[in-house]
């Protein structure tokens, strides 16, 4: 859906700040009928960290192992820091953090296509003709972000060469809330002021640009032009925060613990950004699309995931950030219980798992159950809509409130679903 501020819609003329502070205003924005929201958000910033195990991680090799069954594969289940909860032996470090985590073992998203599955997990809804929903990152940037924050509201840390800015993620929220991708965890390009440009000259340039922009905006204002203008302001702020992107500033021992490989660096960067005030950080770890040699590749990939992720959780907790940071470990779907002739597992969305931690989440909780060999959900089936209700509730937001697009109410989360209260703190 195109976002056009020139449409004259009064709600689109509001800035994020006014959106949050004009409680009870006459605009009919559902969120604003929650008078405590702005206070809560101003008093304590909530953050979100998504770890996206791209390609479809196997629930059987992670959160819902079935050793000794015809679908279980060769790996064993191990105990965790929570008595009675077992996860795959491929996650020994994560197992020691289970008291901080909650597992949802009864997810049925009914979509085995990578792209469509990703949309469901990132927007909480199935793709619909005529309406594109914003990704969670964009929604959180809009709902939790602070306009004075120089960091982008939605930061996407991608493995080298696999990601890029996707303005479409923001949908009707507009490009201001689109992700900024950090390819291989590197700081945005040209973050340093050129050596031959003095601070005074830079300020003069900015003033000239502002004057020209103001003149242009008086004639025509669109989401794109506003985002364009805001991007300059953000860039200046980013230049002052560039130290956040440099993980080399961290103690050697901590860098070692996170791991010197890409995912370890990316997790450490995520922590620095969250600590530095970022609202939403997504870290992508590839690749789990293991139609062939599922067990070899999960051994490798989860071997890389386990320690950095566990370190990140512990680090956030020790710094007092976990209580205000919702952590989500997701994929676009799980993998088939059936093991194919290539020792692989294929796409499977009918009965799989996600892991959550942190803000608003009850540590050590497990909800839902699959049958003995993991082929079907037998208790507390949920879908991505339920997850989004849970995310918003955990963040102190009311998922039943609406975004408005040209007077059309768009609920934050799918109204057909509800929160998974069993895992909410």
């Amino acid at each position: 859906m195109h976002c056009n501020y020139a449409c004259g819609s009064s709600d689109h003329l509001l800035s994020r700040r006014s959106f949050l502070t004009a409680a009870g205003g006459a605009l009919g924005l559902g969120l604003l009928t929650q008078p405590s929201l702005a206070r809560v958000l101003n008093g304590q910033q909530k953050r979100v960290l998504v770890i996206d195990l791209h390609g479809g991680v196997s629930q059987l090799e992670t959160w819902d192992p079935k050793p000794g069954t015809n679908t279980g594969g060769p790996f064993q289940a191990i105990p965790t820091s929570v008595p009675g909860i077992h996860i795959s032996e491929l996650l020994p470090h994560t197992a020691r953090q289970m008291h901080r985590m909650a597992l949802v073992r009864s997810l049925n998203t009914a979509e085995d296509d990578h792209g469509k599955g990703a949309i469901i997990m990132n927007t909480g809804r199935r793709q619909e003709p005529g309406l594109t929903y914003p990704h969670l990152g964009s929604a959180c940037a809009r709902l939790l972000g602070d306009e004075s924050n120089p960091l982008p509201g939605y930061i996407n840390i991608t493995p080298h060469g696999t990601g890029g800015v996707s303005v479409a993620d923001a949908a009707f929220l507009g490009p201001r809330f689109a992700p900024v991708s950090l390819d291989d965890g590197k700081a945005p390009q040209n973050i340093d002021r050129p050596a031959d440009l003095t601070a005074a000259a830079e300020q003069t340039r900015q003033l000239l640009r502002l004057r020209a922009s103001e003149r242009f905006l008086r004639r025509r204002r669109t989401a794109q032009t506003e985002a364009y203008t805001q991007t300059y302001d953000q860039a200046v702020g980013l230049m002052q925060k560039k130290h956040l992107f440099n993980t080399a500033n961290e103690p050697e021992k901590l860098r070692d613990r996170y791991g010197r490989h890409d995912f370890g660096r990316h997790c450490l960067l995520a922590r620095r950004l969250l600590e530095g005030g970022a609202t939403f950080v997504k870290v992508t770890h590839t690749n789990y699309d293991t139609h062939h040699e599922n067990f070899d590749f999960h051994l490798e990939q989860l071997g890389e995931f386990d320690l950095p992720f566990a370190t990140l959780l512990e680090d956030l907790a020790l710094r007092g950030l976990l209580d205000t940071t919702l952590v989500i470990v997701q994929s676009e779907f799980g993998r088939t219980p059936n093991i194919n002739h290539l020792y692989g597992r294929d796409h499977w969305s009918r009965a799989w798992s996600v892991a959550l931690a942190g803000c608003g989440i009850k540590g050590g909780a497990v909800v839902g159950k699959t049958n003995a060999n993991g082929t079907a959900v037998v208790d507390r089936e949920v879908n991505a809509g339920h997850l989004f209700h849970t995310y918003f509730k955990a963040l102190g937001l009311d998922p039943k409130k609406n975004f408005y697009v040209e007077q059309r109410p768009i609920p934050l989360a799918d109204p057909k679903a509800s929160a998974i209260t069993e895992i909410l703190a």
Partner: protein
Amino acid sequence: MSFLAAPPTAPAIDPTKVREVSSWPHTSPLVCARFDPSGAFVFAGAQDNTIVRWTVPEGKKVVLTGHKSWVRSLAFSARDGLLFSGDYAGRLLAWPVAGDAPAPRWDITAHRGWIRALASSPDSRRLASCGNDHLVRLWHVPDGQPLRTLDGHDCHVYNVAFHPDGKWLASADLKGNVKVWDVERGECVRELDARILHKYDGVFRADIGGARGMAFDPEGKYLACCGITNVSNAFAGVGNPLVVLFDWASGKQKAQLKPRAPHQGTAWGVAIHPLGFILAAGGGNGGELWVWKPDDPLSWHTLKLAGNARDLSLHPKGRLVAIPCHDSRLRLYDLASAAR
């Protein structure tokens, strides 16, 4: 070794006439298979954590339980009548080969992580194992006491094989590095290059490869390693089976053996027949059994299999081939030209 110059007492072997003679079912996909040194039994490891023993040729089945993970590797001590089995949890078990209901004689943790292969020395006094802890280990037979750890690989070790003279042990890893160890001194004395059996898939950021099968010829003149090459998509298994044949004396590659008709998949098991031809079986885009003459890189004969093959074992008398399949069946193939 003289190619196809069979001794007068041997059956008339003609690999171009190879055909399935038995198909024995199990209840779970099979992972590996080996004939015991007497040839009276064939054993297979399965995805249900069991080992299955069938009598040859009758096919009387006994299931051996004791492992808690998949059994990927089997070896024997002919002198002691023992079967050794290694699993994905790093456990190494010893069993009597015969008997109505074999139970483990001993059970040790041999490796941290998967045991990928086992091999017995020609004199049956040593057992070699290798695994995901990057190590090769030697064990005393029959009691399983540790003898030596051979440390030198920097990635998962996929296979081990003793040279027929018993002095040398070859080990091959994920990246296609083949190390030759002096068994007595425990030193790596040379390396062979089978790196064509490995690729780092930059798109999926993962290593794929390894010597899935490895075998010497009975005289020790050649070493064969098999696996997958030309990988264009590691996560979908898009690549081609390949056997790399080494001249043992020079340590150089003698040939790279490929199916004559292009095939997508992995060669999971290889053997060099006493008559000089090379056999390999694989799976992927359907199962196939390939036969090569040693001087022709393209297969001499190909047999389509009813299931995707996951290993290959040559009977001690050289006439039967056992192939464990994903469809839970162990199939026997007869290399003799006449009906058995």
